[in-house]
């Protein structure tokens, strides 16, 4: 496949790995922000190929993982409501709410449908004028334009039976939150390439300056990740802290302006709770008042408060890179993909699931989880 195979070439990978090895002189901790990057690092076995000086930690960039519990509960509540068709991206279905997951609601008779695009939900709304269609609009800046576009389409079509349950989160405030945590010890970030393809990377300049950290816009294929790591290591070794763009084939400094215009036509920035973390100021989107008819929470007057998380789940520390998934006492025991305590064990992009699925026996310290003491 053009533009994929080139970025999976083992010869090129070897060369970059050699250059990383030649460049690195001391230990560095690098966080890949996006769950898609975590997935790719683990799936391709890259973590085990890196020199031991480089520790990769997995960031909060998994939309499934950070969607707050009360929104899952709201989704379940709406799904179980008479006449509602609840539409969602696939991997939201297994995420446990405080009562149940959407998949369990579906098993109980709720009409829950897996879609690939919010625009499909528009079609379903047109085909089912006597039903209410709710799309669970989850994601980072990447999925925001399509969700906003769905609202604009619905308005243009005069649809009265379509709404969004919004849980949008933003990357820059999350990075700031991670850096301000006293327990975190991140030296550099690989920024989420797809988020930057929409938003550009100008908004990261203040972060590089404030925390004196390198931030590298990075893609998702093995060569992208290795190159991103090399760029970060070079900056660290040379004492630079800049925003650099590895993912030049998809990302420009200013981003996708028409997409941004659509986002800000429909959404405005708001405070947002991140599951496993806390409320982060200005870290999410909500639907503007002028599109309130398309806001499912307002439309159905959903009043569900934040429920108590399972205390055994250390997802927050894992997503801030304070501990590794296998350092959580519940990992692989009480918490497995079949029976997840927290969201990072659900999505294939979640750090816990990625470790569970792909690399649980490749590092000797993972073989006996009992010997590992959690830092918390």
């Amino acid at each position, binding site marked *: 496949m053009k533009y994929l195979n080139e970025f999976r070439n083992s010869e090129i990978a070897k060369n970059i790995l050699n250059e990383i090895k030649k460049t690195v002189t001391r230990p560095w901790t690098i966080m890949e922000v996006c769950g898609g990057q975590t997935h790719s690092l683990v799936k391709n076995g890259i973590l085990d*190929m890196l020199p031991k000086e480089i520790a990769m930690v997995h960031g909060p960039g998994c939309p499934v993982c950070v969607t707050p519990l009360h929104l899952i509960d709201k989704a379940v509540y709406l799904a179980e409501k008479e006449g509602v068709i609840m539409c969602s991206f696939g991997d939201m279905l297994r995420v446990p709410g405080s009562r149940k997951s959407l998949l369990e609601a579906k098993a109980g008779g709720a009409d829950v449908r897996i879609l*690939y695009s919010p625009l499909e939900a528009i079609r379903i709304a047109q085909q089912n004028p006597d039903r209410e269609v709710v799309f669970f609009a989850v994601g980072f800046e990447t999925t925001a334009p399509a969700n906003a576009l769905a609202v604009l389409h619905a308005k243009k079509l005069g649809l009265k039976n379509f709404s969004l349950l919004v849980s949008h989160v933003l990357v820059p405030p999350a990075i700031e939150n991670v850096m301000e945590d006293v327990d975190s010890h991140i030296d550099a970030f690989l920024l989420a390439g797809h988020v930057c393809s929409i938003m550009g990377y100008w908004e990261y300049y203040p972060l590089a300056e404030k925390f004196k950290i390198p931030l590298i816009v990075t893609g998702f294929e093995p060569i992208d990740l290795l190159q991103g790591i090399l760029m970060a290591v070079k900056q660290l070794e040379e004492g630079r802290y800049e925003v650099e763009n590895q993912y030049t084939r998809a990302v420009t400094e200013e981003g996708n302006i028409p997409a941004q215009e659509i986002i800000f036509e429909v959404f405005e920035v708001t405070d947002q709770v991140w599951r496993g973390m806390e409320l982060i100021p200005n870290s999410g989107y909500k639907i503007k008042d002028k599109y309130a008819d398309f806001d499912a929470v307002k439309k159905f007057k959903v009043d569900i408060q934040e429920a108590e998380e399972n205390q055994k789940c250390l997802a927050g520390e894992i997503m801030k890179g304070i501990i590794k998934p296998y350092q959580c006492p519940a990992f692989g025991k009480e918490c497995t993909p079949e029976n997840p305590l927290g969201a990072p064990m659900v999505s294939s992009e979640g750090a816990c699931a990625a470790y569970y699925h792909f690399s649980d026996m490749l590092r000797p310290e993972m073989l006996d989880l009992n010997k590992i003491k959690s830092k918390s």
Partner: protein
Amino acid sequence: MKNKKTEFPCPEPDFDFPVITLAHGSGGKLTNKLLDGGVFKRLKNDFLDLRHDGAILHLEGQTAFSTDSFVINPVFFPGGNIGELAVNGTVNDVAMCGGIPQYLSLSFIIEEGLPVKDFWKILCSIEHAAREAGVFVVTGDTKVVDKGKGDKIFINTTGLGKIHPKANISPNRIEPGDKIILSNHIAAHSIAILSIREGLTFETEIESDTTNLNHVIKDLLDKFGADIKFFRDPTRGGVATVLNETAQQTGLGIDIISENIPVLPQVKAACEMLGLDPLYSANEGVFIAIVKPEIADKMVHFLHQNPKTAKAAVLGEVTADHPGKVLMNTTLGGRRVVHMPVGEQLPRIC
């Protein structure tokens, strides 16, 4: 897609009712109308002609016996329909035991309201698939359930077949050093179903790989006999599930090589786009063989002569290391665990 099965003949049905109703399953006149005009007409053979409660068969020696129920949405999909799937699925399961499939039972559970034209089309494809596989449908049953109590049509088939005289298929015979062979490219069935179910369109149509494997299995057993230790067809759960089950069952490890996994480019592209892993995707016309190392290359060469197995490849080998686990060498030179899947694969957000 290459190897597309040619369309089989399906004349116009001879029914004077448009849809199947509860009355067609009640055992009375309408049932007879449905059976005479449909099942008995299309699947005619000496066994069915007796119209008895069951079939009287003559079997000698070791016999393979397998049953499977087919529930699929949509019932018609690119490259096939539930009818041929129900025949091929059971035929293949019997073949995987080293059996030569001979007889099938066939049971329908029909949701009322199914257009009789659809039922007819499914029957035609059953007839065609049974003829291609060389099996007889010797007994069966038809029930109709209330609207909403089923999903258009469910089919159960059970198959019987004599064990090939040279076959000695048993997971207990698997040893370290044995080679793992995959018979053809994978994941096409899963993606074909998904594309219809989710209304996805691709530049090239991706078709299900549903086909019978009994003839190629027989040819392999004729030629390589007991040097073949194990056959399985990776249907639901895909190749990863079969390999994990085999590793756990034998207490041995399995090493596979990522580069050797045959996947059609268009299927690979669809999997990339949807965030699905071909290793966990269902197949309906592929088998895995575990064989003595010395015959592996010869067998792959032999398989390449047959269009149904034109992309056969040595996927990896059995090892005494990491018992119960499947490891994959990635294209990049790293290694990762190939886990047992948990539930259905769910497409990722981004």
